[in-house]
């Protein structure tokens, strides 16, 4: 278990100090795939670097299985880091070493015998699906392949925790998907706790079970992925879940028309012909501006934008009608329709 307690990190620059993290507290359970999502500059990278003490927090503590990381000496820290490994956006492989050499590198640092390290590295090349790339150099590989080698390198010392710092941000969607699949496999088969730092909603949706939303150095929302993403409460969360206001929708409401967002939780609510039923039952005929369904954490979510004609009164009626159904949440959209 990783406990982050009241973590604050202040950077002192020439022109004053900057608080990158403000009083952040999170608990990450063993076996979790925990997403930490936020816009650039939200403090995500600083937070993940505080977990393995690449950055020393200004205040607060990080406990990994009860061990206070901040209290360890540099030497102790170096051995703990073999248990909490990391992969990066830029892969950061040693360009002058072969793939095999890269995977052997952390073992070499740990003083493992060469023959043993080589055996382990070859196994790991198999695990990440690149058994034929042992003697290849990183420059000869594609981005996705390089990240696979980086993952193999991170697994070499049998870690308990894998930190992923924007690990898929430099990859195309298809490759991202395959890397995420690999990470999920590793999480399931080896029971490694995974912490994923990202600015991409799709990454969190695809593999995380827990998520924390970081904005301006503070955690604004935290919890189960399905809950946080279906009913985002904070402004930052909404911005992430519905980017560009409404998935890029451009619409000018007519006079007397109100825009209503309807979110359906779960496949039952999403499959019922609710809007048609509403038109029949209370004679409000909404204009469907956008509709989408997606799967988050294994549950189906529907998200719909309706133009409700007939002024305040019919908006109120529509909201009452829709909200009486379980698993349906509505919200009037005012400012974010362009």
């Amino acid at each position: 278990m990783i406990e982050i307690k009241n973590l604050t990190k202040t950077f002192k620059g020439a022109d004053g100090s900057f608080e990158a993290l403000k009083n952040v507290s999170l608990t990450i359970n063993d076996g979790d795939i925990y997403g930490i999502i936020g816009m650039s500059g939200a403090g995500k990278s600083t937070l993940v670097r505080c977990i393995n003490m690449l950055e020393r927090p200004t205040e607060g503590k990080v406990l990994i299985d009860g061990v206070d990381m901040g209290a360890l000496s540099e030497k102790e820290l170096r051995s703990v880091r073999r248990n909490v490994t990391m992969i990066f956006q830029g892969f950061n492989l040693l360009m002058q070493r072969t793939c095999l050499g890269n995977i052997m590198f952390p073992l070499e640092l740990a003083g493992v015998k060469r023959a043993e390290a080589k055996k382990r590295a070859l196994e790991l090349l198999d695990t990440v699906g690149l058994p034929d790339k042992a003697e290849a150099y990183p420059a000869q590989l594609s981005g996705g392949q390089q990240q696979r080698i980086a993952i193999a390198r991170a697994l070499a010392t049998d870690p308990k925790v894998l930190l992923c710092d924007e690990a898929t941000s430099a990859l195309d969607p298809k490759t991202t998907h395959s890397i995420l699949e690999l990470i999920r496999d590793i999480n399931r088969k080896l029971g490694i706790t995974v912490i994923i730092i990202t600015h991409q909603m799709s990454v969190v949706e695809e593999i995380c079970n827990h998520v924390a939303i970081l904005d301006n150095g503070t955690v604004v929302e935290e919890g189960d992925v399905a809950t946080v993403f279906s009913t985002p409460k904070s402004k930052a969360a909404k911005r992430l879940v519905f980017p560009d206001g409404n998935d890029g929708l451009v619409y000018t409401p007519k006079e007397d028309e109100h825009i209503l967002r309807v979110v359906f939780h779960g496949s039952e609510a999403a499959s019922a012909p609710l809007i048609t039923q509403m038109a029949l039952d209370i004679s409000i005929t909404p204009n469907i501006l956008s509709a989408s369904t997606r799967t988050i954490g294994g549950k189906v979510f529907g998200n719909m934008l309706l133009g409700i004609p007939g002024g305040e009164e019919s908006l109120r009626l529509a909201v009452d009608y829709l909200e009486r159904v379980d698993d349906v949440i509505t919200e009037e959209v005012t400012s974010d329709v362009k």
Partner: protein
Amino acid sequence: MLNDLFTSETVREAWEIFISEFPMALWETFYVTVVSTLLAIIIGMPLGVLLVAGEKNGVLPLPAWLMQTLGVIINLLRSVPFLILMILVFPISRLIVGTTVGTVALIVPLTIAAFPFVARLVESSLRELNPNIIEAAQSMGASPMQIIVKVMIPECVPSLISNATIAVTTILGYSAMSGIIGGGGLGSIAINYGYYRYKTLIMILAVILLILLVQLFQTLGTKLTVKCDKRLKK
């Protein structure tokens, strides 16, 4: 002047000297250059590493006063013109090799002039390394020494070789000034015959050989750099 250059007399004379003195001079220049470069690398390389690793944000932060002192010494030695430095280090040459003239004595000022230069070249090579790679090594539990020996230096080998080539050719240029203090080599032939005795043809021959030596070192260096760089493998 050009008419005088290729008279049968000058050509014959040049040929005689070319046969009798040039092989030895060529060897002396080569030998002095290579030995001085090696010594300069032995002293300059660790200093160059310290210049990068010892910084405040480096992998092995050293006290600020030490870093400043190191910087000042290197800059000081680099600012003294080689001609003056050769004369200034006479006492040191006498102390180390027992004499101030001749080929071996020349190695002392060459090394002293070249090691600060090498330190700066090593520094610039190491600074090219992507800092994220160092961070990755730290995240794997590498100690400062491991980062220097297993990451910084091996990852910079192509750039280090390329800079070593620059060092060799520069030192070769310095060694040619040795004629002034009675050192050997092609440089002293060029000065002794060409400048003091107006035998221009001999001077030109010596210069041509120096150019060929520079070409040789540069070609070898470039080839080796490309061969070592695994980023260029396709």
